[in-house]
């Protein structure tokens, strides 16, 4: 028997598999297909203070081994998330859920996090300081250690639950930003958000996506995620959630070896709605294959020697 349990900021997960925000909605689309309680948890659709429609369409472009999205944080706003989405979610998911929050001002982050922190089903707050899609938005917070720390402090001041800061890879020095968040009181770090990308349609000579640029995700970005998780997990003493291009149980193990405590699955859920289910199901077999009895035994093993 292998042990797939991990502890994420004081809450035990049955396994480290966490569908990533923006690829899993509020869970119901997937709950129609399988019992989503098999997951470690999931991070729900990025929520903001006010309702947002997001960017104009087209919002999606295909790439080699990946995709670009510029959805632009479409969500019904925190009040409706609490009054409408969470009660529905409670019917299909009985574990603590990760609340993903975005904002465009420090006060917005604090406002939204304070509200969600009071919700019983919320286990963690995952604060997105890195969404590259919104003009003048999240991007700026995640690209400077000072701004990332300021968001962290403001959220920590009004919340009681673990605060995980989700970082952007579109920076020169990811380690200094992660350290600044840790010093400001963050309970965990998750990375990587999408890489800023663009595609151009050869027939029109124009960008495929209406927003021109968007977030590049999918298996093509996995080596960047692995590298950044490796660097950040060495530099901080708080748990790191690794993500970027995860499609298989092998990918989960690779991220844990790089230093991740848990692992998020993003774009794969959109291509194969059963992707996260399959990863959970295959994880024990893959652990056996590599002689891993407990995931905690291999956490960060790539750092040694």
């Amino acid at each position, binding site marked *: 028997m292998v042990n797939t349990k991990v502890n994420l900021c004081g809450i035990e997960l049955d396994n480290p598999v966490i569908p990533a925000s*923006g*690829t*899993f*909605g509020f869970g119901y*689309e*997937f709950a*129609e*297909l399988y019992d989503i309680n098999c997951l470690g948890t999931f991070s729900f*659709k990025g929520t903001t203070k006010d309702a947002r*429609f*997001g960017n104009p*369409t*087209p*919002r*999606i*472009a*295909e*790439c*080699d*081994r*990946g*995709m670009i*999205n510029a*959805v632009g944080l*479409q969500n019904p706003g925190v009040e409706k998330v609490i009054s409408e989405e969470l009660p529905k979610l409670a019917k299909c998911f009985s574990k603590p859920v990760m609340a993903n929050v975005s904002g465009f001002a420090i006060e917005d982050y604090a406002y939204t996090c304070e509200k969600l922190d009071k919700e019983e089903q919320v286990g963690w707050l995952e604060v997105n300081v890195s969404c590259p899609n919104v003009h003048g938005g999240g991007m700026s917070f995640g690209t400077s250690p000072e701004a990332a720390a300021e968001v962290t402090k403001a959220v920590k001041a009004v919340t009681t639950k673990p605060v995980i800061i989700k970082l952007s890879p579109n920076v020169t020095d990811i380690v200094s930003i992660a350290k600044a968040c840790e010093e400001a009181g963050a309970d965990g770090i998750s990375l990587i958000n999408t890489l800023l990308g663009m595609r151009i349609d050869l027939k029109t000579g124009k960008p*495929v996506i209406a927003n021109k640029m968007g977030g590049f995700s*999918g298996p093509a970005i996995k080596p960047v995620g692995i590298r950044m998780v490796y660097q950040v997990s060495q530099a901080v003493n708080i748990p790191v959630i690794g993500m970027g291009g995860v499609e298989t149980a092998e990918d989960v193990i690779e991220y844990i070896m790089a230093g991740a405590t848990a692992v998020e699955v993003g*774009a794969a*859920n*959109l*291509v*194969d*709605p*059963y992707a996260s289910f399959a990863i959970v199901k295959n994880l024990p077999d893959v652990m056996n294959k590599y002689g891993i009895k407990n995931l905690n035994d291999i956490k960060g093993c790539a750092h040694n020697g």
Partner: protein
Amino acid sequence: MNSAYYDIVYNKPLTKDIYEMKLKGDTSHITAPGQFINIKLDGFYLRRPISICDYDGETITIIYKVVGQGTADMTKLDESNRLDVLCALGNGFDTSKCSGKAVLIGGGVGVPPMYNLCKKLLAEGKDVTVILGFNTKDEIFYENEFKALGAKVFVSTVDGSYGTKGFVTDVLKDIDYDYFFTCGPMPMFKAIEKIAKTSGQYSFEERMGCGFGACMGCSCKTKYGNKRICRDGPVLEREEIIW
């Protein structure tokens, strides 16, 4: 929604760049004409959403146009291949809204979903007129198939090489109908919207991420709030559309 492999029964060209493919597999999840399937192709990351043209207890017919490398590669598949398919997606057409004479308007690659819709409306005992619009004679497909169902069929071509010269609206303006259903390009929709005299349903196309409502990649604003083309659509009612 069913996620499974479907065997290819055949895959053949209907015109220069329009192909018809028959797939064998579970069709029990199909609830209405106008729904679509989402196909995974080797070497491509995202699936290809293709509307269901027709189906029975064990097969699905799709008609697709070669618009990029993915659909170009699809033309090379044959009976030795099988496809990873999500079936069926979207809301489809609601025939209960139409009580009298129906007109079905298909433009180019928007023609296929009209076929099963036509079948269903005729089976419900409704009077059905079909208008098929193409650019030129060489692009026409399924005219005889619609006729064989027993519908009245009109064809328009932009260059006048067959049927009525001009657009589907040049036929529509002289027809008597109580309700319309349409699928086709946006300029055709806008032309229909200008002259349509009744309620109706439009089936929209948009670039999709997942196709089943998770990613919000294909959202649009309607008079009744935001909708996802893939899940709450692709069919929207005339009254709710913001043009």
